[in-house]
């Protein structure tokens, strides 16, 4: 290649910059700038009444959050909700994938039905599940009456509201998990199942030794994705339970919403949202350290 050609031909770096730089600048504007601004806000007390005013208070917002009992309660609710959501979404996703992996008629139709919950919005899911679980309209009440009982069955109560939320959330997320696991399942050569049959493996052994290994990295990635999605979930909870009854389902996101936009304490809300971000990143890093790294190496 001549020198003239080389200069006419853009280098890798310059071409990347040319394509990506405007975009990265935009991303910086819409992600880094707000994050920086939020950090600045978390160090100030912001008031809107009588004009916008910000007073520097240092780390006071953060120490207030840590001392806040409501914060600890919300933290626990978020953890419980996330654990239940992720477990349900992964198990149901895997089961759906296994069911869909068989040869069947109308496969396109069945798969279209199965992916629907993921396409529907989260507020829609919230409305659907509040209709399904509340005593007045719920399916529990209808079944109870059909069986001859005459008592309303309401599961959106202090005791069960988080489980209702987790089921609805899993209903929404499971199809995505299922479709990516299904794509993995399709890559397993059927020859391996024949060999397993020759080895007289039981169904469980076949599942553990043939089916599961190629899925493991995908399972890890989707455990991370569903964890992040559950921890940052807001609109679904807002619509279904509004953080209630009382504060029984006030996850961190709901509390941040309330502190920031109802009580307009934006500095305090910003400080709490950094705690949530730390929780999200911390959990994913832990998942990677204890699970993902091992799986990545084994591939």
């Amino acid at each position: 290649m001549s020198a003239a050609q080389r200069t006419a031909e853009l280098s890798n770096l310059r071409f990347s910059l040319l394509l990506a730089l405007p975009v990265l600048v935009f991303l910086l504007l819409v992600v880094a700038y707000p994050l920086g601004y939020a950090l600045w806000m978390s160090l100030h007390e912001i008031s809107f009444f009588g004009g916008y005013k910000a007073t520097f208070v240092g780390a006071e917002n953060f120490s207030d959050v840590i001392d806040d009992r409501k914060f600890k309660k919300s933290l626990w609710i978020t953890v419980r909700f996330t654990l239940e959501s992720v477990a349900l979404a992964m198990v149901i996703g895997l089961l759906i994938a296994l069911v869909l992996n068989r040869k069947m008629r109308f496969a396109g139709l069945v798969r279209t039905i199965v992916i629907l919950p993921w396409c529907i919005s989260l507020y829609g899911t919230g409305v659907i599940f509040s209709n399904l679980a509340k005593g007045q309209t719920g399916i529990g009440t209808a079944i109870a009456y059909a069986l001859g009982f005459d008592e309303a069955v309401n599961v959106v109560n202090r005791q069960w509201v988080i489980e209702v939320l987790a089921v609805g959330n899993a209903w929404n997320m499971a199809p995505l998990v299922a479709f990516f696991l299904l794509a993995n399942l399709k890559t397993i050569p059927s020859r391996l199942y024949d060999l397993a049959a020759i080895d007289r493996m039981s169904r469980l052994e076949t599942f553990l030794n043939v089916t599961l290994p190629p899925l493991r990295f995908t399972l890890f990635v989707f455990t991370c994705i569903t964890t992040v999605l559950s921890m940052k979930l807001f609109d679904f909870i807002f619509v279904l339970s509004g953080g209630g009854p009382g504060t029984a389902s006030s996850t961190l996101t709901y509390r941040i919403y309330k502190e920031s936009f109802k009580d307009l304490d934006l500095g305090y809300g910003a400080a709490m949202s950094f705690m949530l971000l730390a929780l999200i990143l911390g959990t994913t890093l832990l998942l990677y350290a204890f699970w993902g790294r091992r799986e990545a190496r084994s591939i």
Partner: protein
Amino acid sequence: MRIRLSTIWSWLALAVVVIWTLLPIYWFLKNSLLTPDEIARFPQPLYPLEPTPAAFFNIFGFEYEMADGLVRRGSGQANQIIRGLGNSLIVSAVVTVVTLFVVLPLAYVFARLDFPHKNKLLFAILLAVALPPVSTLIPFYAMYVRLGLSGTLVGLIIVTLTITIPFVTWMLIGYFRNLPQVERLARIDGFSRFETFVKIIVPLGRSGVAVAAVIAFLFSWNEYTYALLLVNGTTANTLPTAISGFLFQHPEPSHLAAAVVLTMVPPALVAFFLQRHIAEMNLVDPVR
């Protein structure tokens, strides 16, 4: 005729999956077809005894005369619903187009080229995916209040892009990586790098590009958190926030149901396309 036991089991499993998926939707959908009399009943009937599409006319402000001569009046919130529908379409269309323009080159660069600090920048994109919308909203909210952007479509479009761009980029990186290595061949044929991208890579990856467009559309169509806090109660309200009126102010179950069913139409229309192509997107690869 003998049917194998395993066949029965697999049909049963399939039935459970379909019921698990459709039962919650059905239980809600039926509300939109119930008569006011049926809705007031306790417990509610398991299926509409006299299914009527009245609510679907009502939410657009039309009266509907029932078989028994009873007229069901149009909803008082019809104007908001119609405006919300228009705004939702505008926001979703603009967000989809902008997202594609931004994301295609970005994902291509990350997938196919090497440059310094690539992994750090990739991490920044994944971080943006992990940001909770309520957190992102706090600085935007303060900023918009001061700039006068709250309650405008422009403001809503900008924040919605913070959801669609990182996620779709991440999706497409894995997709572009798996396309055949045609760059060298294209260069031999005299294509410049830019031409290679526009004339070869994008057409080659058109199903991925289509999925990206559909996902961007779905995400902005389904977006509620930002709309709730930025445009709710203004002339820029989108369909979901317009529906909130039914949720919290005037409980009218059949109108609420009909309006929510309306929001589910686009997702239902793209479901067939998505189930065929979603798994081509490789969410797992960029993480590896």
